């Protein structure tokens, strides 16, 4: 077999394994009570806590709610599933399969990604039906939701590499990062109005770019250009993917 044919064969095998891992997570973890709390109720309460009492039209609030929902729901599966699998030793199955750690990371992230898309549909549909908030441009919404979900799902997998058997350990580390992201990503304060020093921080938040895209679906304009938003989200996904791969390897030694 040529090297190239072998490479494609292995790629196929990796994708099949990643999909099998994702399906397994969906069957097992989507309905676990702690995931429902952290993935569905938590983002809603977070949003209400910050949004209540602020002036804002639905066309500003709905994209913000979608972005926050994605932030919390996409990174809520793996930080629970991976420590539990360590405890049950089923994680050894994944890391002893004839696939690379990239396939394991991807598979785990896929389940968070799909979950998040499902959950983000709730504020989206509520926006249309209840608040009568029309989507001006569907393309940034679709691309924004897909990339942001994938980005935070991979971030969840990255954090779950920390070798603990207790989901709480990872959730608390994750919240140290997730909560500040809400404030530096232009969700409640538009990007143009953030003070100059904080402005720098907004650039290192993936949520900034995701929120910018999702916002554009409702407002018609982006703060950065859509190309920058998409490119930055892709860069974050790659960083998280490779960092996760690296850390899972390191922590097994």
């Amino acid at each position, binding site marked *: 077999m040529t090297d190239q044919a072998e490479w494609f064969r*292995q790629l*196929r*095998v990796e994708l*099949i*394994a990643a*999909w*099998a*891992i994702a399906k*397994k997570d969906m*069957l*097992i973890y989507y309905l676990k009570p702690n995931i429902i709390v952290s993935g569905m109720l938590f983002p809603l309460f977070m949003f209400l806590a910050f949004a209540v009492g602020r002036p804002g039209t639905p066309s500003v609030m709905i994209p913000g709610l979608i972005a926050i929902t994605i932030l919390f729901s996409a990174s809520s599966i793996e930080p629970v599933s991976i420590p539990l699998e360590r405890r*049950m*030793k*089923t994680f*050894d*199955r*994944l*890391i*002893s*399969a*004839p*696939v*690379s750690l990239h396939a394991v990371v991807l598979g785990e992230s896929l389940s968070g990604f799909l979950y998040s898309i499902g959950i983000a549909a709730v504020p989206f549909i509520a926006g249309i039906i209840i608040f009568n908030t029309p989507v001006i441009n569907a393309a940034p919404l679709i691309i924004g939701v897909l990339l942001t979900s994938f980005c935070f799902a991979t971030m969840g997998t990255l954090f779950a590499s920390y070798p603990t058997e207790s989901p709480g350990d990872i959730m608390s580390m994750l919240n140290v990062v997730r909560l500040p992201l809400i404030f530096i990503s232009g969700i409640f304060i538009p990007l143009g109005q953030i003070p100059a020093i904080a402005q720098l921080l907004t650039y290192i938040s993936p949520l900034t770019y995701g929120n910018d895209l999702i916002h554009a679906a409702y407002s018609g304009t982006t703060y950065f250009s859509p190309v920058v938003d998409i490119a930055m989200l892709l860069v974050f996904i790659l960083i998280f993917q490779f960092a996760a791969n690296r850390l899972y390897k390191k922590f*097994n*030694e």
Partner: protein
Amino acid sequence: MYAIEVNHISKHFGKLVALNNISFSVAEGETFGFLGPNGAGKTTTIRILTGITVPTGGDAKIFGKDIVNETIAARRTMGIVHETSNIYTDLSAWQNLMFSAQLYDIGKAVREKRGRDLLELFGLWERKDDKTSGFSKGMKRRLTLAMGLINEPRLVFLDEPTSGLDVQSNLIIRDVIRDFNARGVTVFLTTHNIEEANLTCDRVAIINKGMIAAIDSPEKLKKTIQSVQSVEVALDPVPAHTEDGLRQIATVSEVRKLGDKFRLITEDPPAVISGVMAYAKAQDTRVISVNTYGPSLEDVFIKLTGLEVRHHGVKTVD
């Protein structure tokens, strides 16, 4: 080419030396046993050979593929049965089995056929759609075994395959291993159960405190310790102070009372039998049975691992 080739592997966990410079090789088609007490380093060895963890020093090859640098290629040939029965208790037996098949890229038709065969073999077919959280310990173990064999491996790692199994399940495993042997599949198994190693393995390595104390076929290992042969006698009636009397017989190094019998440890059983007869005559009693025993693998194990000899015939060492 060897199925497994281990060169000077060490594994340190902080200050703890779990494996200390071990080397061995396993030929293709061989059934190789890793026998050792708790904490000896058996599981650590398997984790290194399956690429779950990396050695601190040394290297290992699986069918010529380096486990650290060619991990995926090496893993394609192997089946792994982990020490703990690591199944997904939220899934059914069938879902568990199909999931492991997908990790090994086994097509749908093939995995369904093999899945059925394996569940039937391990007596789980009727329960295939039940959630495994309700399974007994032995059923979980059998499912773990089935999951480890779904890819029809050329080399199987079995980490204490029979722990927690009843006699009947034990026999199934022994048959499976025998069948592997007939088909040229290499088996690497760890156990504390000496009898299991004795009955199933072509060769046994005795490992203790991260070091290999001996490697050989069970029979040859027994030959290395001829000094622990024994003669077992029963007397009727039993005279007073028999133990002391029997201990006086030349070449007897130890006397153990086993129920109504006495076990005399010696390196020269024929001489001891004559001695026993003379003793019986002098004490005016009858010898109602005499048996001689060669050294057991257990004796080898006890000697090499330096465990205290337990009296009254305790057969396992864990």
